[in-house]
């Protein structure tokens, strides 16, 4: 009887909180809203250290923060959310930490694909960007399964950068562009003509910027409007360096597990303040090209 009453009370509170959130988002949307937000989820380990708990619990707290932030972003109408989960550099950490992170990732991917998860609620399409061949077999298979089963979803897009660095992504795009070029040349030879762009005077334009952008992992995704790195760090750490030409780089002080609703609202307000400037730069740059 007691627990029933407690449950209905907490449901009511939850409902009121949800309603208040929606009102706040409605007011926020009077101004420009970002279409794509990227997060560098920094600070899990420092969080665990400050709470004197095991490192694994820091990462778990980080995952809880992630699901809340995703929920708020999709409620606000942000269509694309990208997170930096694991860098290629992070493989150099202690093997047991890497292993526990891999196990946590697999567990969370499986959870996300369950019926009652946020993925099905919002019809989220999941992407995994990075050099997936560097991942251990079970994680890679789980990631590929998640991508395949959500590929036809038409809702918001959630992209996870794992075994990723921006320089690796660019290098991969160079390789793919070469393969594409080789294919075009072969086709040309089969049709009896030589590919003109391999002439000496055109050697700089064998591969163009557009060719490279077509082969980046982010090719079907707009550039991020905001990149948020928690813990107050000022580096981008090899994350989306190509795609962040006009992104507002923010570095709030709270650690990632502490990043909550009010921090997200503050980030949007900061973005809205400089939106006119960034939009003007973006438009004039497009006109020039």
């Amino acid at each position, binding site marked *: 009887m007691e627990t029933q009453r407690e449950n209905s009370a907490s449901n009511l509170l939850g409902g009121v909180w949800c309603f208040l959130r929606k009102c706040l988002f409605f007011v926020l949307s009077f101004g420009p809203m970002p279409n794509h937000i990227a997060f560098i*989820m920094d600070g899990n380990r420092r969080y665990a250290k400050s709470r004197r708990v095991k490192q694994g619990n820091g990462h778990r707290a980080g995952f809880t923060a992630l699901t809340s932030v995703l929920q708020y972003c999709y409620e606000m109408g942000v269509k694309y959310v990208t997170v930096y989960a694991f860098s290629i550099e992070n493989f150099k950490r202690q093997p047991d930490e890497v292993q526990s992170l891999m196990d946590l990732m697999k567990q969370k991917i499986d959870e996300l694909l369950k019926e009652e998860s946020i993925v099905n609620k919002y019809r989220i399409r999941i992407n995994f960007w990075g050099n997936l061949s560097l991942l251990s077999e079970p994680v890679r298979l789980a990631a590929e399964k998640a991508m395949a089963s959500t590929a036809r979803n038409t809702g918001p897009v959630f992209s996870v950068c794992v075994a990723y*660095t921006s320089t690796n992504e*660019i290098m991969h*795009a160079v390789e793919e562009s070469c393969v594409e070029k080789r294919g075009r040349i072969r086709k040309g030879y089969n049709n009896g003509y030589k590919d003109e762009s391999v002439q000496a005077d055109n050697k700089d334009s064998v591969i163009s910027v557009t*060719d490279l952008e077509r082969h980046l992992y982010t090719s079907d995704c707009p550039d991020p409007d905001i990149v948020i790195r928690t813990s107050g760090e000022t580096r981008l750490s090899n994350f989306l360096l190509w795609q962040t*030409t006009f992104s507002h780089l923010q570095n709030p002080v709270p650690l990632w597990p502490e990043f909550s609703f009010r921090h997200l609202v503050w980030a949007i307000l900061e973005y809205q*303040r400089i939106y006119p400037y960034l939009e003007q730069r973006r438009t004039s740059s497009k006109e020039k090209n």
Partner: protein
Amino acid sequence: MQRVQSSKILRFTLGFFWCLLHLPVSIVHLGSYLIKQLLYYMISSGLLQKYQNLQLDKLRYLAIVVESEEAKNTTKIKQLLSWLSSIGVKYVTLYDMEGVLKKSVETDLKSSENPSVADGNAVASVHQERMTVELLSFSDGKGAVAKAASFLCLQYLEGDSVGYNKMEPVFTETDVTNALKAVGHGGPDPDLLLVYGPARCHLGFPAWRIRYTEIVHMGSLRSMKYGAVVKAIYDFSKKHQNYENMPQFVYEHF
């Protein structure tokens, strides 16, 4: 008529609440601005001892991104360069999207004393007293990577003219770095990047070089302060002193 009026009232009310929501942000910005101005004044007038002797051993390469409209103010740019030179910075990369700096600063520096221009394809390096200044624009970013990619692609295709038995191209990041050097766009990775403009935004600075660069927003060029530059360099050197003897992947947390 009534519907139009009520929707106008709704929009007005919404707008009012939206401004109300932005009020705390504006107050915080104003407060922080005032505190910083005081701090910069104290630094410039030598009141704070710890900012007097800057340790520059960790800061080998400094980069500056300037909003192109503000970059037209050559006096400010020259003043900034002279501040950096007096602080003891040895290598400065100046970047603006539209190449305004390349046109204005290069001609200025060439006509000053001790000019020596090292000519790259798209980069001009001028030695000003004891400081090297590199000038970049947007074409040195994505365009340069495309040129490096073309270079690598040609090398790959060259061996076998038709290439039916060729293996898949396998490049490494070092290959791309070397290709960038070969096409005249190799340059050092800056340790610290100062952004002068309305927003903290790198505006297309060559992506390949800012992997682990600390990016600091300095505000507009028009209102630049010597104390702000000193503080940015001091904070950088303090942070990196703590990282001494620590390999990079250890402090790259998440």
